[in-house]
């Protein structure tokens, strides 16, 4: 009993762990395709600085990079920022700011620490005049200006190393944050309350400049005097301020706030935020490396570049934790340089941090790695395209197969047709279809469990019962109306003969000789159809005409041989299905593809009315997931493809044709498979079902089909694997599935062996996965104790 219990839910949904495994596989596929869509590489590379101290300021000086930080850390690199080592002189105070100009370099820090380097010689010119120095700027190879709190001092270093300090005349009681000198005379200083001051005499005297009123309450935390025509500054609220030379008015007099139009997130995506007048991130440092080229840094891993003076700011990807706070840059030129930050972080770039889009460089197709990098995207596209036609093909083929196999095994004979009566006709052709239409929504409601409360039933149940009853009564009370059947027979015969003769002219108009007539179905399709239809009707009419109430088998004696005829045993539904399967199973699929797409133009014939049904004007704003299956339109008015279909079944004619060619063909084969499985169920099963009172359809649905479907899982699996493999033929009609993508890759790369090998592997992965799934399904639906498991 334990084993019984463990197989309890063999038909139900797979157990939870199976579900998880399935989801994991799906997630894997999704993540693979997502990664292949876009490759962006950070423009910054991490460098080992050899220290864990926070780095606060950096300079490029005489071909060397220098970085300074807390605890007096001082490191330098002589190879463009690749390797770093400690150097300079030893101090213990934090080094917070620096400047390099005129062949000299100055570093300042807490407790009045000032270090000065000229010609490679460091001098400690620290003074007890100050507390913590805020910023320092060189005004000559031995002179500089420092700011601390609300004071500005100039200093001259004499030959013997002694410092000559002078307090500059300043005009306010505000704290200064940043100082920058363009040359030995012109400098700018910024501070709290939106203060910007300028000096034209090397820092001795300072005058206020007009900052925009929007920043009058905020501190301007960094200012950079870039050139004689440009200076930039940033406020602690994220404003970017710009000053240009206007006519004769030099830089620094007029300041404006840069309008930030767009802020792009890292990764170069197409989505952006409208910036307004301030940056969204916390920015503490600006570095100007061109008239319009700015680098920005701040806390939370913020590194950004703007190439147009701050209108469009693109945050950059960093190869570090997003928590890292960046404190500044040192740039060798407009492209090469470093960014420094806390915990000894140094990032190095050779393109000003711009992100690299992989794939734009010239690819070496003789390198397998680069070849795969190039071709995998195409193969993935092909894989998706293949999956799309395969999925729809399988759905279509399986539905068609079930319907055809039911038709093929249906026991309805001409005898049953002749024995029908008016109520049965009413029942089959009018009442039942309407009943089914109403039953579908009712079944849905019933499945939700609401039906019990409402006592919901199909309103046509009564009509149906009445028709059934009347039809039984008539069958009992009225004898077979032989005359009516014969009248119908005559009518059918006359109609058939008329059809035949009225279409013969079209055939003769083709001017065919002898055996050429086998091609007449293509020369005059409708004429041939009507003639065949007429022949069928005439035969049917003759049989009906011969009706005398006896439906038994006729014995004909032709000379010595006896022929037994059983015209009433003809099964019309079976005949229709047989004609269909014979046509599709006796012609090659490749030719079917070409005939359906190029000859019959099925794609165009379905696309045009489909587009009319789901036209753009109607769907705009009304699309949902169901219409998306059929067609998706480009709705972005700025796109070139605005108003054109960009997705859905109707987008591509070859796609439509491919689905139909695969589905119609596979349906014919699946029909035979399912029919075989139905035939393999012992006839006693149907008898047993009927003997307890189930009707034919119930016995089929409840008894035969559940067993037949289990039997035909292995052969149907073969059929579905075949369908996947046959989908490669869709390349002939220009559908971009894997094989066609392979051909395109070969055309670009000339790597025949690699390409086709990769295509093979792709197919193998799909079909093998499918086969594994079917094996699993087979195992899951196995009937315990029964040999018809197929595999086990």
């Amino acid at each position, binding site marked *: 009993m334990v084993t019984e219990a463990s197989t309890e839910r063999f038909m139900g949904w797979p157990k939870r762990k199976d579900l998880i495994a399935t989801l994991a596989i799906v997630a894997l596929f999704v993540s693979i395709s997502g990664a292949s869509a876009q490759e962006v590489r950070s423009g910054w590379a991490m460098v080992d600085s050899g220290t864990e101290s926070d780095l606060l300021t950096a300079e490029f000086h005489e071909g060397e990079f220098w970085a300074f930080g807390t605890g007096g850390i001082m490191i330098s690199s002589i190879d463009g920022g690749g390797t770093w080592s400690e150097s300079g002189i030893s101090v213990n105070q934090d080094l917070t700011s620096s400047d390099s100009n005129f062949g000299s370099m100055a570093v300042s820090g807490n407790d009045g620490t000032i270090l000065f380097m000229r010609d490679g010689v460091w001098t400690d010119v620290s003074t007890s005049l100050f507390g913590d120095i805020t910023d320092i700027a060189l005004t000559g190879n031995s002179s500089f200006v420092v700011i601390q709190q609300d004071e500005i001092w100039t200093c001259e270093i004499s030959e013997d190393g002694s410092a000559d300090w002078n307090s500059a005349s300043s005009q306010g009681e505000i704290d200064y944050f940043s100082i920058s000198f363009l040359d030995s005379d012109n400098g700018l200083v910024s501070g709290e309350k939106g203060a910007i001051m300028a000096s034209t005499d090397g820092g001795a005297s300072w005058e206020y400049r007009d900052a925009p009123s929007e920043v009058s309450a905020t501190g301007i935390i960094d200012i950079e005097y870039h050139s004689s025509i440009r200076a930039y500054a940033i406020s602690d609220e994220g404003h970017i301020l710009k000053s240009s030379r206007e006519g004769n008015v030099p830089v620094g007099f007029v300041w404006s706030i840069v309008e930030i139009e767009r802020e792009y997130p890292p990764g170069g995506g197409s989505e952006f935020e409208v910036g307004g007048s301030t940056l969204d991130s916390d920015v503490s440092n600006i570095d100007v490396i061109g008239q319009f080229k700015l680098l920005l840094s701040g806390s939370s891993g913020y590194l950004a570049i703007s190439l147009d003076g701050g209108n469009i700011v693109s945050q950059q990807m960093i190869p570090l934790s997003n928590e890292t706070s960046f404190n500044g840059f040192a740039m060798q030129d407009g492209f090469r340089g470093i960014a420094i930050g806390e915990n000894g972080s140094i990032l190095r770039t050779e393109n000003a941090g711009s992100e690299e889009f992989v794939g734009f460089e010239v690819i070496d197709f003789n390198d397998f790695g680069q070849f795969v990098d190039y071709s995998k995207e195409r193969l993935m596209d092909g894989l998706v395209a293949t999956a799309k036609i395969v999925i729809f093909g399988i759905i279509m083929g399986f539905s068609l197969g079930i319907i055809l196999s039911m038709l093929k095994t249906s026991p309805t004979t001409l005898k049953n047709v002749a024995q029908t009566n008016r109520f049965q006709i009413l029942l089959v052709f009018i009442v039942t279809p309407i009943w089914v239409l109403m039953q579908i929504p009712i079944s849905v409601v019933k499945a939700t469990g609401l039906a019990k409360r409402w006592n919901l039933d199909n309103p046509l149940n009564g009509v149906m019962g009445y028709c059934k009853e009347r039809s039984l009564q008539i069958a009992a009370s009225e004898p077979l109306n032989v005359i009516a059947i014969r009248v119908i027979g005559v009518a059918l015969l006359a109609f058939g003969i008329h059809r035949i003769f009225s279409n013969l002219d079209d055939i003769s108009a083709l001017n065919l000789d002898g055996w050429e007539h086998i091609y007449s179905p293509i020369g005059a399709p409708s004429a041939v159809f009507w003639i065949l239809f007429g022949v069928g009707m005439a035969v049917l009419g003759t049989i009906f005409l011969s009706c005398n109430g006896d439906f038994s088998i006729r014995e004909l004696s032709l000379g010595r041989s006896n022929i037994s005829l059983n015209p009433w045993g003809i099964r019309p539904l079976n005949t229709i299905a047989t004609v269909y399967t014979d046509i599709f199973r006796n012609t090659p699929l490749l030719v079917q593809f070409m005939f359906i797409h190029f000859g019959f133009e099925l794609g165009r014939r379905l696309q045009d009315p489909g587009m009319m049904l789901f036209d753009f004007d109607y769907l705009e704003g009304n699309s949902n997931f169901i219409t998306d299956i059929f067609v998706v339109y480009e709705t972005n008015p700025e796109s070139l493809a605005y108003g054109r279909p960009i997705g859905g079944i109707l987008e591509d004619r070859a796609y439509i044709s491919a689905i139909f060619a695969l589905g119609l063909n596979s349906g014919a084969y699946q029909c035979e498979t399912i029919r075989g499985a139905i035939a393999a169920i012992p006839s006693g*099963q149907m008898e047993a079902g*009927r*003997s307890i009172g189930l009707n034919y359809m119930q016995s089929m649905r409840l008894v035969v089909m559940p067993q037949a479907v289990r039997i035909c899982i292995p052969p149907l699996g073969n059929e579905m694997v075949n369908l996947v493999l046959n989908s490669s033929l869709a390349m002939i009609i220009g559908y971009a599935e894997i094989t066609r993508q392979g051909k395109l890759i070969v055309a670009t790369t000339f790597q025949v062996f690699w390409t086709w090998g990769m295509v093979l592997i792709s197919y193998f992965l799909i079909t093998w996965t499918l086969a594994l799934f079917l094996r699993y399904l087979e195992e899951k639906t196995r009937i315990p*104790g029964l040999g018809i498991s197929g595999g086990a």
Partner: protein
Amino acid sequence: MTEIILSVEDMEKTYVGGVHAVRGVSFEVKEGDSLAIIGSSGSGKSTVLRCINRLIEPTKGVVRLKGEKINTPAADINEVRSRIGMVFQSFELFSHLRVIDNVSLGLIHVRGMGREEARSEARKVLERVDMLDRVDAYPGNLSGGQKQRVAIARALAMKPEVMLFDEPTSALDPELIGSVLETIQGLAEEGMTMVVVTHEIGFARDVADRVIYMDQGLIAEDGPSSIIDEPKTERMREFLSSIND
């Protein structure tokens, strides 16, 4: 006077291909009677049985169930079949369904019962055939005798007016026959009307109220079970002696 449940009048059946399997058979079964049909293979026993519930359409003749003619297009064949229980030689259990679902399938889809109601009904019937302990097993995991008892329960669940047994023990090992025969015997003692096609002469003698011996599509002998011990015709004597060997 007991009511006639089932009557067959002048039944004939010619198969496609011209085999004349039944050549005019008539008999009646009264309520509570058990009728045994014996005869050699090909004598038309099974054909008669299948014609009764129209798994095969008789070529000629009338079948009446409680006086109502059932082999006409006017009779609702599915309704009629649900009133006639049938047990097959090869069990024909629905192998994809558990024992309990095998028995309740007809109750749900023909009688229109709810699932729970049908199941409790099915349990009652399974208890009668002593199969209550295997309700959750699949037919493939049952022995032949158990399968046949489930098949009997499946027919019984529909509360049939008459039960037809088509060689219920022929496919079983001698050891397993006993339990099935006991079950059938129990039903007969409860007063179930039944027609049993069988090769178990001993069983026919002990259980049947009446025995029909068929030969070449005709009833050769018809009488109480005692005719087994005293066959009148040479043909039946040969048949009996060949079986007793």
